[in-house]
């Protein structure tokens, strides 16, 4: 009986156009649903395309992401003034900039602390000898757009597709109130090396330790 069931059903499909049509529609719906589901990840990937942004840096120069078509990679590092983890990571960032800057990697710091004013950002840049542009994300729109919740997060973008190939910690040297003598995993450096060599970036995502941003509620960030 069980063996004959599909055959009988097929015969009925062949004989009755109505049944065939309904079966067809049901499977069409199922196919659509399944297609939708399997298309999900590529949708997310499409959503993973970083939207363009344009911000002023602390020296007044406008920096636009989509203008960086000549760069092989754009590294954003979120920051705010007075964050000890960022401050302690600055020597490392400067070294990475030296190492990869000539290879077409652009490094931008992005200050998404809405309360950091230009004067205090300039002071921090002077104090710590920061020679990277510090982009003023005072509306926090870049941090929101990239879902960045903490300082010291690096987001590595490839300009060919405007997608992220690494995001997370610079390395694992600094924890909250604790620091190792040296990093045992230089995540960002490894990610950049592998990316530039055309190799797989793994890990492509790590947990970040940094200061939490305070986000203004959307209602209060609306222009008046």
């Amino acid at each position, binding site marked *: 009986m069980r063996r004959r069931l599909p055959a009988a059903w097929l015969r009925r499909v062949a004989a009755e156009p109505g049944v065939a049509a309904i079966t067809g529609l049901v499977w069409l719906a199922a196919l659509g649903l399944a297609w939708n589901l399997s298309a999900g990840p590529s949708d997310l990937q499409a959503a993973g395309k970083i939207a363009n942004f344009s911000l002023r840096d602390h020296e007044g120069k406008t920096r636009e992401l989509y203008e960086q078509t000549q760069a092989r990679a754009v590294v954003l590092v979120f920051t705010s003034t007075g*964050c000890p983890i960022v401050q302690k990571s600055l020597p490392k960032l400067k070294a990475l900039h030296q190492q990869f800057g000539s290879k077409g990697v652009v490094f931008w710091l992005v200050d998404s602390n809405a*309360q950091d004013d230009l004067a205090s950002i300039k002071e921090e840049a002077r104090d710590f000898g920061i020679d990277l542009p510090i982009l003023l994300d005072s509306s926090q729109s870049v941090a929101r757009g990239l879902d960045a919740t903490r300082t010291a997060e690096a987001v590595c973008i490839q300009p060919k597709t405007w997608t992220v190939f690494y995001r997370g910690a610079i390395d694992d040297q600094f924890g909250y109130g604790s620091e190792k003598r040296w990093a045992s995993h230089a995540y960002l450096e490894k990610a950049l090396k592998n990316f530039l060599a055309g190799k797989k970036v793994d890990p492509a995502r790590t947990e970040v330790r940094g200061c939490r941003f305070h986000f203004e509620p959307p209602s209060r960030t609306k222009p008046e």
Partner: protein
Amino acid sequence: MKKVMTKVFSVIGILLLSAGVTVALLAIFKPEKLRGLSRVAGGPSAPEVKADDFQLLDHKGRWHALHRQTDSKAVVLISTANGSPEMKEAAAKIKALRDKFASQGVVFWMVDSNPQDDRAAIAREADQLGNDLPVLEDRAQLVATALGLEQTCEAVCISTTNWMTFYRGAIDRDLADSSTKAGGSGNYLENALSRFLAGKTASPNRTRAKGTPINLALAKDPAGTPVSYTAEVAPILQKSCVSCHSPGNIGPFAMSNYEKVKGRADTIREVLLEQRMPPWHADPHYGNFVNERALTPEQAQTVARWVEQGAPRGEGEDPLATKPPPAAQDWPMGKPDFVLKFPKPETIAASGVFDYRYIMVRSPISSNVWLRAAVVKPGNRKVVHHILVLVATAEELQTRHFRQGNAGGINGYFSAYVPGYQAVPFPEGSGKFLPSGSLLVFQVHYTATGKEETDQSEMGLYLCKEKPTTELKTRSAFDVRFEIPPGAPNQETQAEFKFAKDSLLYDMSPHMHLRGSWFTYEALYPDGKKEVLLSVPHYDFKWQHLYRLAQPKRLPAGTRLVCRGAHDNSTLNPDNPDPNKTVHFGDQTFDEMFIGYFNYTDAPPPSSGLAKTGGG
């Protein structure tokens, strides 16, 4: 025509059928894709939230931190409160579940957020219920607020791989609210844990527990009154934070106005939940200390509630802007009689973790003197993490053990500086003896700031006008023969000091290095009574606190001061320089120490009424 149509529909039907089957098979063999999507899709049965890290002490004074539990697979928190009838019903079930799942890497903690429940009452109730689980004291209700715990007997299961909750609600059907209609066996928590351990999604993953409301007086303001920045928040910050978080001091940012604080409001809430700031490591259950820096539970809750309200500015002036802390005075106690200075400026590199530096300075005083105060003034407050000043007499300098051991500070330090430390003279009527020709050894711990810095610290010496009635002595209970095996998570050590005469104890300062885990001082009085004078449940090498007693403690002759403590040489200790090493006593931070320092004087006769009798 009809036949042609029939055939066309049939072919379409069969084609679609096979396509459907293919896609279905694809979906089956790529389950992770669908799982990921279902999470993205969310829905009413998706209770997953990320559990922020927190630190709490339990009813036995032991320290627990959520995000340290990485050697386990899951943490189950169960809200509790004394006198909750549901907990009476649940106690045995919880214990049975713990017994079943402990060996599979599940940690069970109770969380008591009821402000009325003090430690003794929690311990009594735990004994009555036969509960041997740690009951975490959430005095400031920060954990209850963060996790939305509103009633007792609710379980929250957290995965230690991503700190996401995977089940929340009743322990089983009998302990569920009547509105819970979830089917299955009804052993909700047990099923959730079994499925989680098997790599499956808990189902149901959300039920409603039956429980007694927690008295969230602090967390919930029925009137919804905004916390006042001017009247409530700023005074707390002024009292407990700005001494370091001000220009030129060690705090990495200055709390110099409302905007500076607001931009870091969420970080401030986080450091309160994790008890990272203000730095203070004594269990508040024992002793009163004049230099205590921790916020009270009420203060912590006030600040956290303000952050949750969006850190509103409100009305009134900005005390942080209008009343900045007075600029650090050169010498708050006045001009010293003598000033010692590091021979040359010390250079501190932009990055790195530095070994202690020992800087020697010869005393400029050519006779034996008594000092009423010795005050260390850091040259650069951004980099000086601590300075201990040790004295080596001319004789001690002849011994070969000068660096390792004795003058490494076991006999005591002469003066000290830690961030936020306020210089005070030695206790009334007492003084410290400084022999002529002494060498003062400054043990300096520098930290990197991210840019190169220099420091040239000083010490001011204040002479007594006349010979003091008693000597302030720094001594210690110590052990130099301990051995810490590789990976040992809790290697205990004990040392003691016996007081030959009636004494007055003024302060205590435990000293271990990066593997230091916990440390207690307990007085064993001659009459057999015991008293814990200081407990540091989570020792942090980076904060060398001097715990100054609000009232000097009178210790009768024969009292033994017992120091107990442990080192954590496991991989779970994030500060551990090398868990594979067997560790012994030594003066560098990758070696270890076990020293319980204290300052005391001989006691005047009890009739003088200088201090209350302690314990005995």
